[in-house]
């Protein structure tokens, strides 16, 4: 079930990424929806799932961007693993904490990509600090919104199911 949910979230992220790119060319530069999905999976604290989620989300990002294939997969795997590792020790539920987590994840991801590009080629494309700042803010805000939204949805779904069960009991 968790795998299906993750794949659906990844497909939704791909759809939004493509829609966003069509509306504005800046969209894929300032928002990383795939990282949001990877972090959402990693926040469960399950390390193996985090590695798989980071790899899958990164590979989809790589397929929709230029550059060496596997670059984002490498970076997102590290970020997702670190997030899952942190989630086993800390409870990250508050909106500010979630925001901070996403913003830090973007910073780490960009640092890893920069390091890899340096190692792979002589003249890597260095992301500007402003660009990284925007990406941290936008992805952080979107990640927070997604986390809060998902929590509300889960609560509503739980209430709906409880209500349905009680109705069934009355009926029987």
């Amino acid at each position, binding site marked *: 079930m968790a795998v299906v949910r993750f794949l659906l979230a990844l497909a939704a992220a791909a759809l939004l990424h493509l829609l966003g790119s069509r509306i504005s060319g800046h969209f894929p530069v300032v928002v990383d929806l795939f990282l949001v999905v990877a972090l959402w999976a990693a926040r469960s604290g399950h390390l193996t799932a985090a590695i798989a989620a980071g790899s899958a989300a990164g590979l989809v990002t790589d397929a929709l961007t230029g550059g060496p294939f596997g*670059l984002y997969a490498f970076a997102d795997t590290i970020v997702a693993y670190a997030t899952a590792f942190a989630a086993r020790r800390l409870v990250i539920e508050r909106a500010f904490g979630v925001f901070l987590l996403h913003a830090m994840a973007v910073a780490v991801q960009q640092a890893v990509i920069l390091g890899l590009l340096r190692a792979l080629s002589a003249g890597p494309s260095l992301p500007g600090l402003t660009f990284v700042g925007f990406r941290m803010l936008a992805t952080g805000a979107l990640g927070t919104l997604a986390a809060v939204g998902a929590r509300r949805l889960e609560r509503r779904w739980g209430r709906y199911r409880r209500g349905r069960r009680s109705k069934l009991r009355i009926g029987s």
Partner: protein
Amino acid sequence: MTGSGSGERRSGWLLVLALAAHLILLASQVGSRSGGTRLESWLLGALGPIAGAVDLTGDTLGGVGRAISTQGRLREENRQLESRVEQLERRLSALHGVEGDYARLAEAVDYARGLEVALRVADVVHADLESGQRLLVLRVEGERATIDQPVVTEQGLIGRVVIAQGPWAKVQVITDSSASVGAMIERTRRQGLVRGSPSGELELDFVPLQEDVRVGDRIVTAGIDGIYPRGLPVGFVVDVRPGEDLFHRIRVAPSVDFGRLDHVYLLEAGRVPEAILGAEVGDGGR
């Protein structure tokens, strides 16, 4: 606690394995000019239809909106275009005469003509032109695109196909920071190498300081890299400065407005055979 510790150790090893696999994937592409990995092709094939659907929806909605708001302007434009077509048809018939003269002269001096080039239209379904690595995803009707196939518009050169999967093709744009094109200054025929940069501008390298280069000079493909045929517009010089190592530092603005791409053309040029490109000097006759 011990169970959790061993679980963490196990997933730690799994992380090392996953990272090693990604590194091998990355390392396999360094210095390679082949059409990407099988996994990348597969992912492009899976994501291509989503990109196509998004593009189609956008086109339909945008088209209806535009048609309503610009009906009057379209009529006026149509009238202007009709008169322009008439002028161009007259010019074309004059050029047919020149072409005939050229063919006769070429035949008389037994001149080996350049590669025959045909065009095939392709739809742009996704564009990432803002990040350092710039790319387009195309939907190609009919026969599938081939690796390294040049992609152009009416304005000039776009780039080359790097991955083809079914009707989908991934194109490396010339402004990509890892792209390079064999090019020359049209006025002086001096050859150099046009490279992309993170800022989206192009740079023409390896033009000696003693060479005359002027702002506004047109840069076209030189036909020396085995990918692009000669004479495709690449851009024009916007800045010339003395650089390091006895070469000019030349900034080139692309001739194509990459922000307005909705369709492009694949060049069906006869490529120089790999056997000739890879042959060592002295191989001839053996």
